[in-house]
């Protein structure tokens, strides 16, 4: 293999400003981020830090105000049209008039995959998320965790090179969440897709990721990227190792430290913000 490795996601100088109620909100500012192939990157930060916005920028579901988002060497929009993405939201967003298998088949139908290939692919995906026995069920007949697994199977149906997950387990109870984390790790390792994962949960981010991107709130900036060097596969035992706790502490302190720093600089920060708002408004 002599191919020069090209980052899957390359974000340069991105900022995002929302117009809201006559004023403008700077949601993201000066974001530079590069994500390599086969990485599992978590975006973590307090509410309103723009982590979901960043995910949506990567998926071309919203456009940056300035800067560029490059996916597999092409603009995000082209990557979307090339179907490079799979996406999983916090809610499963299943179509309730479709059975489980028809939900998983949806992206393949949109793409125009032949029926026979579609069937094979759906079967493989349902096997991957261990829901083969529920292929003919309707979403409302499934538990929340199972529904989310269907939405993961759907996101992976087109073999996307990048899987975007926006707080996918935020609505699940802690036990289910840990089980789903193990499942996502297994799926990530067996499919070889790059994952960008938005979460509120520090343990979840540490357990799953190769890198944790810690963000600060309004305007969202990247504070630090922390490498997670826990060995794979990570299991329930991993959750009890010293290194796991050290990393959790490191992420937590980075989040908190930023807050302390902000508190110390409040005067300066608000002066800056006033100037910025005066400038754009």
């Amino acid at each position, binding site marked *: 293999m002599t191919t020069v490795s090209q980052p899957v996601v390359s974000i340069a100088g991105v900022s995002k400003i929302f117009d809201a109620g006559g004023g403008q909100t700077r949601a993201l500012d000066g974001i530079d981020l590069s994500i390599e192939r086969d990485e599992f990157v978590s975006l973590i930060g307090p509410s309103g830090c723009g982590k979901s916005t960043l995910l949506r920028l990567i998926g071309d579901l919203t456009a940056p105000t300035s800067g560029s988002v490059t996916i597999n060497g092409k603009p995000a929009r082209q990557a979307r049209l090339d*179907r490079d993405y799979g996406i999983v*939201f916090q809610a499963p*967003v299943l179509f309730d*008039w479709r059975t489980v298998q028809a939900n998983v088949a949806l992206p393949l139908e949109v*793409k125009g995959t032949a029926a026979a290939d579609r069937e094979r692919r759906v079967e493989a995906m349902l096997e991957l998320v261990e829901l083969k026995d529920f292929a003919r*069920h*309707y979403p409302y007949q499934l538990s929340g965790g199972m529904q989310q697994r269907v939405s993961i199977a759907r996101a992976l149906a087109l073999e996307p090179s990048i899987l975007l997950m926006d707080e996918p387990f935020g609505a699940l109870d802690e036990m289910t969440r840990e089980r789903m984390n193990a499942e996502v790790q297994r799926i990530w390792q067996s499919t070889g897709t790059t994952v960008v994962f938005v979460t509120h949960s520090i343990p979840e981010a540490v357990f799953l990721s190769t890198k944790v991107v810690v963000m600060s709130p309004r305007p969202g900036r990247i504070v630090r990227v922390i490498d997670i060097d826990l060995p794979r596969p990570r299991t329930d035992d991993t959750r009890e190792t010293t290194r796991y706790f050290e990393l959790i502490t490191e992420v937590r302190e980075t989040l908190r430290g930023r807050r302390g720093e902000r508190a110390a600089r409040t005067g300066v920060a608000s002066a800056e913000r006033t100037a910025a708002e005066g400038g754009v408004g």
Partner: protein
Amino acid sequence: MAGDRATRQAAGISLRPIGRGLLIGGLFFVALILVWEGAKALGGDPWRFSDAAGHETVYTPPFTWAIASDLSLPHVWKIAGALAAPVQRQQEQSLAGYLVGAALYTGREAALGFLVGGILGLALAAGFVHSKLAERAFMPYVVASQTIPILALAPLIAFAFGNGVLGIVIVASYLTFFPVTIAQLRGLTSPDPRAIELMRSCAASRWTIFWKLRMPASLPYLFAALKVAATASIVGAIVGEGNPGGSQFGLGRAILNFNEQYGSGPEKLWAAMLAAALLGLGFFLIVRILELAALRGRPGAGTG
């Protein structure tokens, strides 16, 4: 298992809710007749019975209520008798036969109006959901159109399109397209924004999003509107037939004729109203069966 039962229900259309509805409706109809005759027994005109020997028995109710008089509420058996009797003197055809023919005639026009109005409503909603500008421009007219009394409009339409079937179909569709437009627009915009983002993330076109997401999501709303439209189309057809330039046939004409003869035979008008009600019920049931078929497998498809 709950899951198994749901799967079984999902596999075929269950007409059980319709059967149950008809049974309850039938029982209620019997109750209605009892209330009807009960009111006449309390406050109607004197009841007269004559036996085979020609001996007459008279029962005089204790009160006198205008609303329960024989002219307002004819006895149920008088209506039934009128249905079996010839529609006019020296005619072979029974009133029932005449009304069945009239109902079929009106039903055909109403069905055409329902179809035209339904398609127009679907098209308008599909246009509005894709163009905010079109919605802003046309919606006020769509709403305003429904504030014009159909009675004022029907003669105008008959004048413009002749008093054949076409004019009547237009009147029926005029009453039909409105509920369909409003409900369908609501239905087409009902999907979760994330569902639309999901479709966009796999590069679905507007066309694909419309057919694979918006349209199936709209069906519960559409069928709610179609039930309103089904009965409105019959009202439209009857009004269309009954207006001065209207039709020589159909329930509208029958109702006008029997209205004129009300003094001498109120039961004929009641029989015509019964025919119109049954026709409406039939339309409604057809829509309901289509709904059960279209929404099978969805949660709550068996209700409503």
